[in-house]
Structure formats: C-alpha cells, structure tokens
C-alpha cells in the first residue's frame, strides 16, 4: 500500500518539505494544502525587493508552478485545513472534504499579531505577511506620501528602509527603546537607529499607538504619549503568533507553537511540525526555540521530510539570517536570548563589523554588518559550543573559523 503524506501549509517550509520528500525518493501520495492561492514562495523579498518593485513574483517561487504536477504533488491551494483528526486519520478542509493520511506535517507558519487598537480596521492600515499584503502596500507608495510604521522588529525596519528608498516620508513608532534592540542588544541597535536617522526617518520609541484616526481612512496616529502623527497610510509590524488551530485541543502538545523534538516529531506519532509554527528542541542550544527565518524554514522543512521517511538525523543547524536595510546587509548566526559579553571586531561607527555574543566564554551568536564572511565562519565555533580564547576572538589576525581551536 503506498503511503499518503499530507503537508498542511504551503509556505516555504511546506514547499521545501514537499521538494525534499520527492528528492529523497518518497513515492507515495503527497498532498500540499495551503490557505494562500499561490504555490509556495519565499517571503523575505516582500519587505524588500518585491515591495520596491525590483523583483517580480515569479522570482519568489520555491519551484515553478509546473513542478508540483510534474512531481506528482497534489496541491490544494486557496483552502484552509481546519483540523487534523487524529482518531480518524484525516485532515479536514473548510469545504467539508477530508483527506486521509498516514503521516502529516504541520507547516502552517504564523499570523500577524493584531493588538486591539481602535481604528485598526480603517482603510490604509496594513500589515505584511503575504504577497497580497505587499501588493496592497505597494499601491500606497509614492514619493512624498507619509507613512507611519508601527513596531521596529525586522518587518518594521525593512519596510521603513524600503519605503524611504522609494521616497516615502516615514515616521516610526515603537514600544522598544531602539530598532531590533531585543534581538541585537543596545550597542548594535544603536547602529541600526543611526542608519535610519541618516536616511531621514523620524523615530519615536518607548511609546505606543493609542488609536488610528480618520474619517473612513487613516489620517493620523495618536500615541499613548500624546503625540499625533499625520499620515497617508500605516504599516503595522508587531510580530507573529504561531498558527496552531489545526491541532488545537488535540493530543498534540502546544506551547508557544507546536512542540517538537529534534526530529520534528510532535507528541503524537506520525504528526510532525516544522518552520515558524514549531517550537523545536535544538541540541546545540539545549532548549526549545521557535524561529521565524528563511533559512530555518527551508532546512527545518527538509529535516521534517527526512524524519517522515524514518531517517534518524537530528536537526542541529545553526540558525542564520540576514536583513537588508538600505544598502547595508545585516547578518546574524546562532541564538543568543541573553549574553554576558559582546565582543566587536571592526567599527560600529563605520558600520563594518562583526560582533560576538558570549555567555560563559562560549559564542552563542554573532552579528555582522557588511562582514558576512565572518558571520558565516562563526557558525562552526557556535556549533562546536566550546569556550573560546577572548584574546584570539578580539584579534583580527585570527580567522573566525579557527576560533574553536585553541
């Protein structure tokens, strides 16, 4: 009997898993269900090249649309899976259809966090997750128009940069003290702030939106701190929450996403989860982590595919991601929720540097600006998890890849 694998979620993780299953020789039935009408595509350009009109949508596709029928992958797109019925072993769709499965991969990703701010539903207030979200924002863009960006995480920062590059007048409001300070720490976040400031972005930190106001359409943002910011449109970027509804209330354990082990296996046999939705155990950092980045989406989807094919290889990739803002490329490798020492090579002021986040003498993560090579080379020492010699870490003459050796 050929087996049937169902992938719930046709984003980058679901798409990468489908590709990997066929590449690894899975010959059974393979169904890919996605709530968006498009075949799997990559989201990073939505806040950058695609938003700026520099890359067509086709460039974002994981594989061309013909790939799926050619590979015998049945796509059910533009339809929501409502439930994974563990007893009946079927995936229920919103149109009432049921798809039987032998194994399921949940790769439903996340949805934008929406806080109950008055006026959030006004015309001209957007958030960004999908290509149609990006299209709606693109329609608003014209030189001289005024935008308010709410939140200065990666989406807020990148949209700010892209809109400035297109001549939009951008004001920012965020609860944080600095852009990306939660991830990068104050020293590096100050560099990010200075870059936006140089580009003429008006930034308000440690304040929050009280209400979006306007007659029918957003005209201004009123803040809790009593500020009034006039605008033509708003983009809200307050992060995502994992989309776990398909297994809500079931035996699949949920806690900040779907809990999986290092093999993408949930608490229920035959049910796997990967990508943004999966709160996964990571052996290098010895804890559970939920990650929302491009490379992880691909590699975790591939890892889940391997596990579904019964290979016993743990997912232990060192996370790595980039963020392009204006003409600077920021890169980050590893995972450092907190650290006790930050060591910088290069110059923060000149915006060419690599910095290492250490805890107990071990490099947990690195961040670099315009020094991508060093960030990538740090992935070896991060994975090795060994103590490094701080004098060597500071010494530019020592190659970053050699830091694990003493």
């Amino acid at each position: 009997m050929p087996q049937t694998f169902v992938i719930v979620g046709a984003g980058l993780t679901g798409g990468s898993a489908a590709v990997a299953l066929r590449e690894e020789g899975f010959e059974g039935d393979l169904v890919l269900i996605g709530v968006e009408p498009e075949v799997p595509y990559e989201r990073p350009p939505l806040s950058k090249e695609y938003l700026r009109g520099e890359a067509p949508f086709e460039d974002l596709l994981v594989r061309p649309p013909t790939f799926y029928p050619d590979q015998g992958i049945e796509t059910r797109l533009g339809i929501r899976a409502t439930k994974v019925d563990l007893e009946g072993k079927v995936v229920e769709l919103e149109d009432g259809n049921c798809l039987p499965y032998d194994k399921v991969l949940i790769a439903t990703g996340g949805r934008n966090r929406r806080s109950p701010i008055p006026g959030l539903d006004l015309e001209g207030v957007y958030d960004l997750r999908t290509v149609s979200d990006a299209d709606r924002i693109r329609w608003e863009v014209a030189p001289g128009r005024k935008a308010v960006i709410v939140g200065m995480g990666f989406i807020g920062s990148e949209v700010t940069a892209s809109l400035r590059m297109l001549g939009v007048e951008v004001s920012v409001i965020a609860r944080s003290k600095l852009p990306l300070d939660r991830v990068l720490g104050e020293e590096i976040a100050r560099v990010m702030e200075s870059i936006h400031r140089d580009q003429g972005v008006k930034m308000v930190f440690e304040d929050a939106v009280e209400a979006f106001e306007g007659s029918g359409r957003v005209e201004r943002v009123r803040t809790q701190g009593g500020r009034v910011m006039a605008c033509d449109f708003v983009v809200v970027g307050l992060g995502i929450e994992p989309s776990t509804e398909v297994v809500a209330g079931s035996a699949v354990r949920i806690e900040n996403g779907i809990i999986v082990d290092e093999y993408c296996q949930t608490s229920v046999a035959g049910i796997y989860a990967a990508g943004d939705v999966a709160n996964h155990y990571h052996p290098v950092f010895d804890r559970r982590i939920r990650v929302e980045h491009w490379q992880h989406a691909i590699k975790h989807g591939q890892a889940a595919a391997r596990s579904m094919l019964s290979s016993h290889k743990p997912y232990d990739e060192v996370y790595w991601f980039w963020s392009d803002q204006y003409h600077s490329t920021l890169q980050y490798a590893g995972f450092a929720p907190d650290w006790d020492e930050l060591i910088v090579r290069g110059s923060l002021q000149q915006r060419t540097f690599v910095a290492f986040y250490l805890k107990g003498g071990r490099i947990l993560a690195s961040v670099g600006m315009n020094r991508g090579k060093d960030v990538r080379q740090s992935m070896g020492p991060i994975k090795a998890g060994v103590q490094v010699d701080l004098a060597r870490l500071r010494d530019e003459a020592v190659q970053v890849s050699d830091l694990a050796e003493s």
Partner: protein
Amino acid sequence: MDTFVTIGQAFDIGEGEMMQVEVTGTKVAIANVAGTFYAFGDTCTHLDCSLSEGDLEETTVTCACHGSMFDVTSGAVLQGPAKKPEPSYRVEVCDGTLRIEV
C-alpha cells in the same frame, strides 16, 4: 568562440583564494581550488554582490551577502536564495599566465 583573454599571473591567486577580474565589461571571479583554476560570473545572481568577496571552500563559493552557494566548476546553484546559475568560463594556464575564454 575560442577567444582567450589574458587576465594575469596564476601566482597572484593563492590556493583557496579568489580574485575578481573584468573582461570586456563583465566581472568574472577566478577561484584557485588546490591548484586548479575556475572562472565564473562574479556578480551574484541573487542581489548582485561580488562572489569573490565571499568564502571558497573546495569547489563551493558562498556569497558573503546572503549565503547563496554556487559550484565554481559549473556555476550551478547549490543553495539559495539565488535561483539562477552563474555563467562559467573556460580557463587555461599557459606558462604561468591565466587566460579565460569569453
């Protein structure tokens, strides 16, 4: 077309190193993999970064900007975000002089 252009001396590029050259307006990267030279497009097909400023490990070049990986022997994409391959050029070493076919 057998148009070989002299681009420099082989000893200018150490083992495991890369160099960018410009040949008739095209930026080309030359990689020295254990004494064998390979030439390929230097401009990353993803977002135009210079591949010769990236990392060379055996026959794989990794773009310093966004981590795309290419096979230097063929220009093929080994890992995204890049999706399009790099052009690949024939290289010959004559008497210590590097020449590539364009």
